[in-house]
């Protein structure tokens, strides 16, 4: 119970919620508008974060340029995925998208000399003798921390500084997505959710529309990956397993899958659920040892997912009538 009272815990949870909010937003663009069931979204996070890390550590790039390159890489990953698989029938696309992200992770895991392999980014070869990419960024964080100290006093930590940056980005991205929803581009995508023939018969290249949705979503997912990398300072291929994509799916369903504004709410709920379970130090959880409790936490996520789909597929914040989970 002690952990609940520590502000550091809540700040961490809010920070994770912010990162998941951005990540899920990238997924929401694809599903909410285009009805695209992309289950390989985590690959974009992996691509952006590792690209950034490798560029900074091995090639001594400026951090901010590397972050930009990372996001571009995520977009390219989305383009590759879309170009190769969007023409497949729906269920094949979904299965192959999972395979895509697993293969990306696989390659990261097995390319020791490039990505550090299973030991993570600490193992990336570096000319400077140490494998870290956060030096430049830490200065910025400390700078911000100094500025917010007058407002938040002792709560102003490095994490809080990053939290502000992440949520600021999230809000900007949310506003962008809201604007995008009102374009005719979005209208065409919404039409393709229901029928491919009609938009095609009116001159729309349905494939290109879908591809652009996947690329946009992948870019946003890539941004989340950069923030992940900056928060954790170390990358590990095990952090980018398929389960992360399913967390994003949970987030958008919790918020009502077609509503952009539901994503931050879903992210906050999910953040508390996932992080909060870490600190359940009361029975019946105390019957299990800590290793088993880790398994139990994921089981809880599994149960919530199932419950959600069975009983409340419109999420916490969606309306049944609006539901488009056909």
């Amino acid at each position, binding site marked *: 119970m002690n952990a609940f009272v520590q502000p550091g815990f809540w700040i961490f949870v809010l920070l994770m919620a912010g990162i998941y909010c951005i990540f899920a937003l990238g997924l929401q663009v694809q*599903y909410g508008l285009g*009805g*695209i*069931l992309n*289950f390989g979204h985590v690959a974009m996070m992996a691509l952006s974060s590792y690209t950034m890390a490798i560029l900074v550590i091995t090639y001594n790039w400026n951090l901010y340029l590397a972050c930009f390159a990372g996001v571009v890489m995520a977009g390219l990953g989305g383009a590759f995925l879309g170009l*190769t698989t*969007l*023409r*497949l*029938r*729906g*269920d*094949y*696309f*979904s*299965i*192959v998208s*999972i*395979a895509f992200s*697993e*293969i990306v992770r*696989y*390659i990261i895991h*097995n390319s020791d000399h490039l990505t550090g392999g299973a030991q993570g980014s600490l193992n990336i070869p570096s000319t400077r003798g140490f494998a870290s990419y956060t030096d430049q960024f830490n200065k910025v964080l400390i700078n911000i921390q100094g500025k917010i100290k007058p407002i938040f006093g002792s709560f102003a930590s490095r994490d809080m500084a990053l939290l502000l940056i992440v949520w600021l980005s999230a809000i900007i991205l949310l506003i962008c997505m809201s604007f995008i929803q009102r374009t005719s581009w979005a209208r065409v995508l919404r039409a393709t959710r229901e029928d*491919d023939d009609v938009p095609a018969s009116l001159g729309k290249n349905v494939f290109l529309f*879908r591809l652009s949705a996947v690329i946009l979503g992948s870019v946003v997912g890539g941004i989340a990956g950069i923030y992940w990398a900056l928060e954790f300072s170390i990358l590990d291929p095990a952090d980018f397993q398929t*389960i992360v994509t*399913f967390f994003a*799916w*949970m987030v958008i*369903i919790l918020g009502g899958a077609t509503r952009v504004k539901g994503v931050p709410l879903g992210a906050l709920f999910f953040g508390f659920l996932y992080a909060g379970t870490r600190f359940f130090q009361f029975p019946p959880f105390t019957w*299990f040892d800590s290793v*088993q409790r880790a*398994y*139990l936490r*994921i*089981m809880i*996520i*599994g*149960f919530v*997912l*199932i419950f*959600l*789909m*069975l009983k409340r*597929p419109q999420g916490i914040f969606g309306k049944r009538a609006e539901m488009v*989970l*056909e």
Partner: protein
Amino acid sequence: MAEFVQLLFNGLVTGSILAMAAVGVSLVYGVLRLVNFAAGDFMTLGAFIAVFLSISKGLPLIFSVIVAILGICLLGLALDWLLWKRLRENKAGTLALFLVATGVALILRQSILMIFSSGSRKFAINETATFGFLGAQIATSQLIVLLLATSAIITLGLFMAKSTIGKDMRAFSDNASLAAVSGINVNKVVRYVWIINGILSALAGIFQGMVQGRFDSTMGWTLLLPIFAAVVLGTIGDAYGALLGGMTLGLVMEMSTWHIFFGGIPSSYKPVVAFATLGIVLLVKPEGLLGVKARSI
């Protein structure tokens, strides 16, 4: 030459195990439109039950295997009764089925970890016994697994082709609504699907465990990708296709490590090879080897 024979044999063994698991997944999809992400975990659980009973409890191997099979069949049926049936009644869409299937897979995997704890297991068979064949040393366990797997597949094939319920299953998978109104007992078909899937999954898991030597709880998940590749390759929903896909990918995966292919592709990349093969086939035949063109998405 010896290497070729060795790899060919490996390919046949891997292929038949993949084929068994893939047929299970394809059948479940064909009849229930459900992508069973828990397939790998079914396999792992089957292997773990069998090894637990035969090693930790000292029960005879055959008995342990039978109990494992029964267990997985029951698991499939229970999940159907609890979840899939409800989703069918609610006319759930692809997304709901996908996510629930993932939830189930997550829960199963964590349960296996919790009950059996991490760490590897091994069947009480002598995997070092080998025999010579055309210059290569083939493990006896591999031969036995290959023979058993082949018999299982042939038996299943005959059953599907000749029996009434087998025909009903194929009719249902072709056109579910038509089959339902023409008097086919839907519940019976569903039950048989989970029973057959249970037999195939449990056996596939046990065979893989035997051939692998030591295995842990990630065994099924590692195979999941090649299994799905095999299913998609053979056109999802088509059991014979899954057979073809499984054997093909098994052979391709193992043969790719042959040194004449640029020194042999490292064996840790086998799943990547499986998917690369699938990708190439899909470029030419987007519906799979045996499929009829369907509208995309």
